[in-house]
């Protein structure tokens, strides 16, 4: 495992919340106070948290899907056409360039390439596989609780702590040296 990345002159806070609305409100408050370097943890894809709490918009994964699918379709067509042209041999009285037959291959290639490039897009954007040591994490976040991890410059660390405490976290952990998450 790779050691976790530390941020010089920063402090880290991990707040564990039992309630979804507290987590959303904490994220909103942090954003309102101008903090950007924080992460929210959830045991499920909670759309309110992602959209309201963190105002996340479009994901670039869709570009990967489209590009992959188009590359696949083009590859499928090009491959079948080129191999038929390479040695023109009439079989079954069909044209050398048999569009309906090649659509099947092009379609399957579009799906295959599209799916694989979606996975690549996900891995690149979500930073998976994540081989760094799991420091800014709490195992409860895959169970029933939510979490927020904030890395703040030492000067603003106390206000962050105040904001987080305001939402009554079940647990508040402080790292003297914040991690880059």
């Amino acid at each position, binding site marked *: 495992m790779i050691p976790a990345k530390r941020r010089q002159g920063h402090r880290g806070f991990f707040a564990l919340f*039992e*309630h*979804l*609305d507290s987590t959303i409100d904490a994220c909103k408050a942090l954003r309102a106070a101008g903090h950007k370097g924080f*992460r*929210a*943890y*959830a*045991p*499920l*894809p*909670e*759309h*309110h*948290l*992602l959209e309201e*709490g*963190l105002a996340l918009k479009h*994901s670039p*994964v*869709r570009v990967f899907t489209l590009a992959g*699918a188009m590359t696949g379709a083009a590859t499928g067509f090009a491959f079948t056409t080129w*191999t*038929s042209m*390479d*040695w023109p*041999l009439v079989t*079954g009285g*069909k044209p050398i360039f*048999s569009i309906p*037959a*090649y659509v*099947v*291959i092009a379609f*399957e*290639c579009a*799906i*295959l390439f*599209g*799916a*694989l490039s*979606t*996975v690549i*897009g*996900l891995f690149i*954007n*979500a*930073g*998976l*596989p*994540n*081989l760094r040591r*799991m420091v800014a*994490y709490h*195992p409860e*976040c*895959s*169970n*029933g609780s939510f979490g927020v991890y904030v890395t703040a410059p030492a000067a603003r660390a106390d206000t962050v702590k105040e904001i987080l405490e305001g939402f009554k976290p079940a647990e508040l952990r402080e790292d003297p040296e914040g991690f880059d*998450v």
Partner: protein
Amino acid sequence: MTTAELRQQRGTLPNPDVGTYEAVNRDVLKVLSRPGKGWWILFGMAATGVAVFLGSWFWQIYKGIGVSGLNAPVGWGVYITTFVFWVGIAHSGTLISAILFLFRAPWRQAIYRASEAMTVFAVMTAGLFPLIHVGRVWHAYWLIPYPNSRFLWPNFRSPLVWDVFAITTYFTVSAVFFYLGTIPDLAAARDQARGLRKKFYQIISLGWRGTDREWHHFSKAYIYLAALATPLVLSVHSVVSWDFAMAIVPGWHTTIFAPYFVAGAIFSGVGLVITLAVPMRKFFGLEDYLTVKHFEAMAKLCLLTSSIVLYAYLTEYFLAWYSGEPPERGSFWNRVFGHYWWANWIMLTCNGFVPLMLWFKRVRRSIAALFVISIFINIGMWFERFVIIVTSLSHEYEPWAWGLYRPSVVEMGILLGSFAWFGFWFLLFTRLLPPVAIAEMKEVVPPPMRGSEEAAT
């Protein structure tokens, strides 16, 4: 549906007895930690069956394809029948995981992981059959499209080459889709496990933490994968059906084949999901997860697809008569009253008539009845492919070229062994991967809110 809306309609939730997120983790991860005696017995049976499967196959490789009953005119028999059967089985998994996901059906959450695993293992089983069928399996790599020594490429106008592309794509995409969906749940298993198991889950969960960044891209990627898997699943069985429909064989050469095969595939697949879900529910104590509502929804899917299949059978008979073609008419007359009349009547009874009982709500809500009906569906759908393949080939145009086919012991060993091979993987799955999607189940559980606890007290 948003979670807030779900909270309001607590009474209509698919799993009203699952109250908290912690309960989901506890109930699902419990399954992984407790290998009961029954599991070991089943696993032993499956392993024995796999030995029969491999033994029969090795015997065929050693002696040659002559040990099967395949010969002119019936060159496609039990192997191709079983191939189509298993590909069909696979389809309901993708239907439940991808199509019902896009339709936002809230009952899919509890059942989709098991059915998707079924998809992957069914394609793994199906994929072996072309290799078994070709006989000289050491030449199986000829299926890969590459030029031969004279630089001739394969004929891409052949439906058999389409099939290679369709099945390979289907296996890859469904395996990727399945694995991706399990990553958050593997992380949940990792956070609870200890020792060697923890190491295992640590590696395969790819360091998932459930951060906003991960979930954001994950949920988007999941939608796009579902959107790709949906047309894929419809295309795969269409391509399989074209293996037949493109050939000028009476009984095969019809345009109805693609939709007819896709409906049949979903029908058989949902049947097997019911067959597997009933014991899983009982032995793993998942009664709160796989509720009567889930079974009723699957029964409705069976009823719908069974009606489509029965309609397709009747259309085939009608069109054979209406075509006025003596070979076409003869082929269908032979199916119903010829040498293989029994296979045809098993097919009609199991797929067309027995599922008619699902019109009754009491039957749809009775898990025991559904289990029995699902066994009929499994048998009937195997016979459907047998009827289509064998009766058509045995009764083509010229009467002097007609012939009969009888499966050999080796073929039966491989057929029965394929169920063991499938069961072997499925049993391993229930031990190693969370059999219910933990993270997605939480979407249909009311989220913990500050207000909800004050209201409760």
